[in-house]
Each structure stands twice: as structure tokens, then as C-alpha cells.
């Protein structure tokens, strides 16, 4: 409504006017008000039209079915099913973070899933261009559903490592944990206390951080997970999803 340069412009105008004509400040303020109102009421200047044009022309077409079949471990039929669902929800062919958050929120009606969705989005968006295309989507799914244990654990590590520097620090883990707990929402029994995520992080680090240096590296992570029976078993849980 009132951009910074406009505001300074008005201020300058005001000062000049006052100096020149010696009117009272009140009168000028009223004039300013009128101008402000007019600016607010009038349509926005040209950049908005361009924005709209830009959005409508962004349309992404994925690579051919054969290439995708080669790059991922899905069969042709499975790719077809995946694409149909994908295109239904996002006709333009790409998912931006907002849509992603919306979609994910539908699965967790009781909680606040936008933080975790944000992390997920970054994990899927491997080329970090701010939007998820069908290829990113399908590559991620291929690892999660059809990948080896190593790849899956790698993917999970990548998810936890927020700044992608190869180490999971306690702060990063705490962020992730809080995001997961947020998804539970408020209506839980027993009520989630403030430091539950922190305690959970402590337990996690006790388990994973073998050399007690305060960070978890990829090797420590994979080692520890491979030795944990529960985790191994749960990794196979979703193999029949598609």
C-alpha cells in the first residue's frame, strides 16, 4: 500500500511545501492522508501484472516415462499412477512449499505440521530451486520405498541435517524433534510438556553419538541404526505402499 520510497517522497514533498508556502502541518497531513487513500484505492502499479503473467506461464512437463523408469525403481504402471495423483493436485506440474504444506496438513488434522513439512520439502527438493517437480518427487519416493537400507538411512540423515553440512547437531535435531511433536498437536494424552522434545533429543544423542563429540556423523548414524533392531524392522514397514 505504501512503499518505502513513496513514503520518503511524500516526506520530501511535505517539507518543500511547508518551506515554500508556510502552511500548517495539519493541513498538509490531511493532504498526505488523501493521497495515501488515493494510492491505496487505486490499482497497484505495473509489477503486479507481470507477476501474474509469470505464474501462469510456469508449467512443468516431466521427462518422458522411459527416462523416469530408468532413473527410478518404479515400474511404468506405478509411475503412471503416481503422476496421475500428482497432476490432479498440482495441475501446473510443480509443487511450491505452500501447496506442499497444505497437502501435508490434511493428513494431520490435529497438529501443526507446517514445520515438518518445511523440512520434508527441503529434503525432497534436492536441487534447491524452491519448487518440487515430479522428478524430485518420484526420485525421493523411489529411495524411500524401493531403496536399500543404506539409501533410506542416508535419506533420513539428509532430512535431519538441516543445513546439509554432513553433521547433525543437537540444535538441528531439536528443531526436527519439535516439528515432529508439533504434528501431534495439543490434544494429546498425557499433555506434551515443554521439554519432552529436548529429552527425546538427549536420548537420541546418547544412542547415536558414539564418540560424544556433540554431533552425529553419517557413519555413526548408519552404524547405530543398523544395530538397532526396531529401526531396521520399521524401515521395511512401508515397502508395500505402492
Amino acid at each position: 500500500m505504501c512503499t518505502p520510497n513513496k513514503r520518503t517522497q511524500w516526506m520530501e514533498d511535505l517539507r518543500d511545501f511547508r518551506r515554500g508556502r508556510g502552511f500548517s502541518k495539519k493541513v498538509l497531513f490531511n493532504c498526505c492522508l488523501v493521497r495515501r487513500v488515493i494510492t491505496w484505492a487505486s490499482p497497484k502499479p505495473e509489477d503486479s501484472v507481470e507477476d501474474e503473467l509469470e505464474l501462469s506461464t510456469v508449467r512443468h512437463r516431466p521427462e518422458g516415462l522411459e527416462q523416469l523408469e530408468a532413473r527410478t525403481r518404479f515400474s511404468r504402471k506405478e509411475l503412471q499412477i503416481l503422476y496421475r495423483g500428482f497432476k490432479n493436485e498440482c495441475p501446473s506440474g510443480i509443487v511450491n512449499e505452500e501447496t506442499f504444506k497444505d497437502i501435508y496438513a490434511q493428513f494431520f488434522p490435529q497438529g501443526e505440521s507446517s514445520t515438518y513439512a518445511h523440512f520434508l520439502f527441503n529434503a525432497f527438493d534436492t536441487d534447491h530451486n524452491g519448487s518440487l517437480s515430479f522428478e524430485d518427487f518420484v526420485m525421493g519416493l523411489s529411495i524411500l520405498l524401493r531403496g536399500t537400507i543404506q539409501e533410506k538411512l542416508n535419506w533420513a540423515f539428509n532430512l535431519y541435517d538441516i543445513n546439509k553440512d554432513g553433521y547433525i547437531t543437537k540444535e538441528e535435531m531439536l528443531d526436527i524433534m519439535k516439528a515432529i511433536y508439533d504434528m501431534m498437536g495439543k490434544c494429546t494424552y498425557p499433555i506434551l510438556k515443554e521439554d519432552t522434545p529436548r529429552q527425546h533429543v538427549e536420548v537420541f544423542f546418547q544412542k547415536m553419538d558414539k564418540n560424544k563429540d556433540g554431533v552425529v556423523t553419517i557413519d555413526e548414524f548408519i552404524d547405530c541404526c543398523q544395530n538397532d533392531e526396531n529401526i531396521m524392522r520399521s524401515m521395511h514397514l512401508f515397502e508395500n505402499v505402492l
Partner: protein
Amino acid sequence: MAAGVAAWLPFARAAAIGWMPVANLPMPVAPAGKNKRQDEMIILNVSGRRFETWRNTLDRYPDTLLGSSEKEFFYNEETKEYFFDRDPDVFRSVLNFYRTGKLHYPRYECISSYDEELAFFGIISEIIGDCCYEEYKDRKRENAERLMDDQEDNKDAKPPNMTCRETMWRAFENPHTSTMALVFYYVTGFFIAVSVITNVVETVPCGTSPNQKEVPCGERYTVAFFCMDTACVMIFTVEYLMRLFAAPSRYRFMRSVMSIIDVVAILPYYIGLVMTDNEDVSGAFVTLRVFRVFRIFKFSRHSQGLRILGYTLKSCASELGFLLFSLTMAIIIFATVMFYAEKGSSSSKFTSIPASFWYTIVTMTTLGYGDMVPKTIAGKIFGSICSLSGVLVIALPVPVIVSNFSRIYHQNQRADKRRAQKMQKARLARIRISKQGTSNAFLHSKRNGLFSEAPEFTSSTEEDQRLNKSTSLLESQHHHLLHCLEKTTVTSPLNYINHEFVDQQYYQQSYLEAGLQNYPSRSPSLSSRDGVSGTCCTRRSKKQHAPLQNASGPAHMQPLTQVHAHPRGLQELSTIHIQPLSTSRSSLNMRVDEPASLNCQSSQITTAIISIPTPPVTTSDGDAHLRAGPAHQNVVKVSAL
């Protein structure tokens, strides 16, 4: 779950692998996918026009005809298609609903045929998208009103079992219902006219006595007029009493405008009877007779137009108020100006500012009686400005009032808006309830123990059947996802602080209790594990505790598992005793060792728990036995959202 989003469920489940390294407990077993018929095309033959779609498109909404097994009734073995003998045009909208998740109402379609089709296919009309909902509701309302009007016209035989009182009221309100009512209507109308004319003629001078001045007829024929007046007042009194007797709500009737007019019309007569012919009060008595003119307002019962005029004035109150206010302002300004302008002139009629008010009013309304005129030049100038501005000020609000009148005459807009607001609120409430249904469905499934806790638990066929009956595959997968999340948020296997989804009502209650326990300074730290784990373990093993001694609700205060329950229980739970002295959050669940401390020192605080109407699916008993829950579930749950 929305249509498109259902397709993303595999993605959400795959992403759940991100929780696995963090979880400390084993995850529940995933529901077995049914035989892979997912990629199958279905042919729907609607009156000869063939529609084809994927099977899982239709499966998105399992509580409609096409999404459930009900469509098997329409399966044609020879042609291997589903045949429906319905309108194919409307079916297009219905099928698009499955495809896109939004139901649209085509404008060219008749509202009742559309409604019938929706009812046939088991789709509730609240799901109509916002783009088409207004239109749909408008058409529906118009249709209903038209039908009602038709019915009213045909309504001549009164319902048989109406009491005498109801008959009378109906006769009063609508004179066309019976001959008696019509007679009564005309008789009262006649007497109102007679009374008014009497009042008028009473004051006409009617001939002179030889030695006196002209006397009005009222004083000449006192007896006659008195008799006439008495007769009219009798009739009015009887009418008023009969209306009072017949009114369904006497209090409301007495407050209504018409009854006040009735009372004001007949009261002066009785007051006159009571009062003696005293010198002092006769003046007041004369004034009271003025109120007899209010009898003319009784005609508004007989005239629709008069009622609308009154209603218009009432609804234009703000415009009238504006008119009055601006006029007052202008009068004061101009009166002051004129007074000071005319002060100098001799023999000026403008003796004071209030005296100038009269001049200003007469000039502004362009009446111009001429009894007060300005004589100085300044006075004349300001006088002319006054009359010009008067025209403007009065002319402005008048068109608004006129347009209001015409608007109200054609359409009763205010009542419609209120009705629409109510319907909008009701609609939102219905949508909210059905959204609740999805989360409550999860809780319900959990309670019924449909989830296997340990991975080694192989589902027996009976379990499978139960699974098939109660939830669709989509639902069970979604619930499995939520269950995995629950399992993830466990800090350590030793403590078993298993956070579970609960419904909002229980959360409110336990939250409130936890909050109120902060008041006393001696509330122990809430991190005491024993109490909490005791609760969880208790819950896990579903033990029954001794009920709280002071508990207000009966069995509902008992084990946790019952708390989720019972639509009726919602109300009962709203008075719980909050004890300032209890030691932990779990006191709600009855620590067996301290029944004594929960005594009358506790203040009974009625918690304002928002009773969200849980669908009747919730179990009322703590034990997880499966009732005919699944049958209900299909009816209540709307997974369309």
C-alpha cells in the same frame, strides 16, 4: 480427506520413514493391502450414456453409493458394467465430484431434480463448493417459499385437532379462514371508523344556542356521544381481551406494538370514568382525550400498506436520525445568525434565538408563513441562504427513505439475511462436525483395538473381516500413519509416556485441571514420573479404579477409557471438582490411596467445556468390544473433506 490428497497418501506414508530413526518403540504393522485392484477401470452406464473412471476414484468417498459396496446392487453381469437408471446430465456433476473433490451445481438444472439425484447417490448437499453454494441455497429457498405459498392458498380446511384458543388466534391473524373471522374483522373495522368519526364530529360547532356562543356538538349532544363512545370502547375492550386470551405467548403479545396501541386507545375512557369532575384534573382529562385518536392506528391491522410504511420508517431510522440531526444543526446555526443580523433593526420579531428557530424552520422547509420576515439587508441575505440550504438538507435523505420503502415492499430483506446468516453458521457447523468425524474416526478405531501392537501379531481372518467392514483401505492406512506418529513421540521405552491423540473434549478437561493446579503454591513438579506412568500403565491394562468420591458425573469419571465417551456424558463432565490439594495430574483418574483428600474444601468449578457433538460412534464402555459401530460409521462419517 480430499480427493486429490488421497493420492498423496503413499507419499505421506513414505515420508514417515523420516521418523523411524527417532522412534524408540516398534512401529505398528501396516494394514495389508487388499488384492491389487487399484488400477481397474469401472464402466458406469447411466441411462445409456457410459462413463468410465478408475475404481479408486470412486473409492475416495466410501460413504456414498458409488464408493461403497452398495453399487454392487447395480452391477450387470452380462455387460460387466454398473447400470443406473438416472439422469445422465446430473450424473456428470456427481462424477466430477469424485474426480475433483468439489461438487458443483449447474444453473440450468432444476433444484428438486438435483436434490433427488444427490440423495440417491448419497451425497450431502453441504459439500457443494463455495462457487455454487449461494446459488443453490437461493434456488432452494425460493422453491420452498413457492411451495409454501401454494400450500397456503390451498389451505382451507383447518387441521382437525386445534384447540379453541388456537382457532381463535388463527381467526384473528388471518380473517379469511372462516366466516366468523371475516365478520369480526369487518365489525371491528366499522367500529374503529365510527369511533374516529365521532371524535372528529364532537368538536364541530353545531348550531348556536340563542344566548351562548357556538357550542361544539359534543357539548350539545353529550349523552349521545357518550353512548357512542361507550359502545366503541366496549367493543375494543372485548376484542383486546379476546386477543389476549387467544395469544400463544401472552407476554409477547402484550409487548407487541398493536396491543400497545389498543391499550392506549381505550385507556382514556376508563381513566375518564374513574376521575371525578374535578377542576384541577379536568384539564388533564381533556388532554387524555387526545389519545383517543390513536384508535386510527388500529386500522394498520387491516391494511398491509400501513404496516409496511411503519416498517419502513423503523428500518430507515438511521436516515431519519441523520435528517433530524442535520436539520437541528442547521436550524441552530441559522437562527443564531439571523438573530444577530436582525438585532439592530427596530421592531424586529427576532427577539431571541429560540424565537428565531421558528423562522428558520419555516424557511428551511420552504413553508414561508410570513409571520416573521427579516428587515435588514444582512438578514435578508442570510435568510435566502437559509432557504436554499434548507432545500438541500431535506432533499438528501428523502430518496433513501423512498427507495427503502420500495425495497421492503418487494422483498423482506432483513429477515432473509438473518436466515441466511443462521444457515451459513449451521452449514459451517455441519462441515466442522464432519471434519471432526475424520479425527474421531481414528480415535474410534483405536479404541476398538483394531491396531495390532506388536509386529508378530498376525491378523486372524476375523480381524481382517472387521477391518474390511469398518474402514476402507485408505482410512486404515491413514490411521496407521497417525499411529506411527504416536509411537514415535515416546521419549524412552522405560517410561512409556506414550502421547496419544485424544479428542478435544478430554484435552480441555485435563488441561484445565493441570492449569488450575498451578494455583496452590505447593503443587509438585509435574515431571513426577510415577504418577503419570502409573496412569499410562493403568490405561494400558485398562484397570478399573474406584470412582472419585466427590465426582459429580456417575460412571463417567471412571477409567480413562470411558472419558472419551458418550454424547450425554459431555454435559455431565462439565462439572468436575478441581481440587487444589491433589498431587498430580492423574488425580483425575483416581489415585486409590487418597480418596480422603478430595473433600469438600475443593471448590467446585464448572468448567466451560465446549461440548462438541461427537458423532454417536464413540463407545460408551471402556472395554474395547466392537459394537455396531461400523454400521454407524458409514452413516455419519463424511470423508469427503
